[in-house]
């Protein structure tokens, strides 16, 4: 699903990623760990197609429509409601039976009751749940999740655990985390980045 060879990234003089090789087969679950500044986010952005490497090559079998990316930002508009945000993404991803799918993900992450509230009024945990709804909405083949547990309370984290476990094997995962123990049982491989 994803193959990277001698991947590197520079921003001007600053090198943020150096000679990364990775092989992620379809259905795999690769956990990326490393200290702050090791380049986890840059690697994930490259793998999601949001950034281009300055060195090396990357081959991704999934098209843009088949990638679900969760970054440090929820990528939702604060002035819109949860429903309006997901409607927008649902339209852009051309999801068939969009309304039903939106209702399903909102129910799953416990946001159905708050669907008509503006995202600006959500807590950080609720916003992260909405971000997960956005990522899963179009049922992507490749899930690139950067610190997916951040800002989630225990209930939210358990919901995410259940979701990951359900999709494990059916989808391909690239997950960065500071808490690898949380996804230990799901992982098929681990990539440790150093500064």
């Amino acid at each position, binding site marked *: 699903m994803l193959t990277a060879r001698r991947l590197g990234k520079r921003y001007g003089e600053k090198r943020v990623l150096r000679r990364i090789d990775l092989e992620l087969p379809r259905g795999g679950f690769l956990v990326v760990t490393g200290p702050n500044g090791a380049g986890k986010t840059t690697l994930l952005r490259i793998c999601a197609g949001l*950034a281009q490497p300055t060195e090396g090559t990357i081959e991704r079998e999934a098209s843009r429509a088949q990638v679900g*990316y969760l970054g440090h930002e929820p990528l939702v*508009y604060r*002035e819109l409601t949860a429903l*309006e945000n997901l409607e*927008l993404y649902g339209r*852009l*991803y*051309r999801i068939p039976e969009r309304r039903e799918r939106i209702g399903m993900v909102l129910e799953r992450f416990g946001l159905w009751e708050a669907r008509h509230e*503006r995202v600006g009024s959500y807590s950080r945990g609720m916003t992260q749940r909405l971000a997960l709804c956005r990522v899963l909405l179009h049922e992507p083949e490749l899930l690139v999740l950067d610190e997916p547990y951040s800002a989630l309370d225990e209930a939210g984290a358990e919901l995410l655990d259940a979701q990951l476990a359900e999709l494990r094997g059916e989808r391909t995962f690239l997950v960065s985390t500071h808490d690898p123990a949380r996804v230990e049982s799901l992982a098929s491989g681990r990539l440790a980045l150093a500064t």
Partner: protein
Amino acid sequence: MSYFRDVGALARKDLLLELRARDTLPAMLLFVAAVFVIFHFALPGTPSRLETTGFLWVAILFTALLGLGRAFVPEREQRTFDGLVLAPCDRSAIWLAKSLATLAFLAAAEVVALPLYVLFFHPIHGAMVAAVLLADLGICGVGTFLGAMAVVTRARDLLLPLLFLPLAMPIVVGAVGASVSASPGRYLGFLALYDLLFAVVCWASFEYVVAE
């Protein structure tokens, strides 16, 4: 057809954001009204049509600049650009939708500006209205494109006028020419050509503007 559905969804989002946040349109309306009131009291006697036409276009251009500077503010402040860039739609749809939303705001500002111009200065004629419509297309298309380039830089507030105003000079020439000339046809044709040329350039190259 799906391209225009994407443009519609994105433009609807921009209009909804403005309806909720009211960040751009009130500022544009207040600015353009204030400019005309200031011109009215600052100009001694009855200024000629030639002079007031120039003021009208200065007011329109700077009002548009105000709107263009805010076009990508939601994406910048809420960092939602990645979400739009990742979506499987053609990336030029983002540019076209933003341009249309900015066009709607500029048109709303002109609904205030043109009656004020008539009230304070001179009547307007058909060629002038046609020039306004054609100039708006060019201003919003080019300005939105440059706004997307400027928004990722630290000096965005400085960069947008620096990039936009030189590129808007042909619009001013065409628009003023169409407004004051006895035969405005060639100026309107020039504006239409400018719109077409830059629409194609912006549409084809927006992909590279948003790519990291």
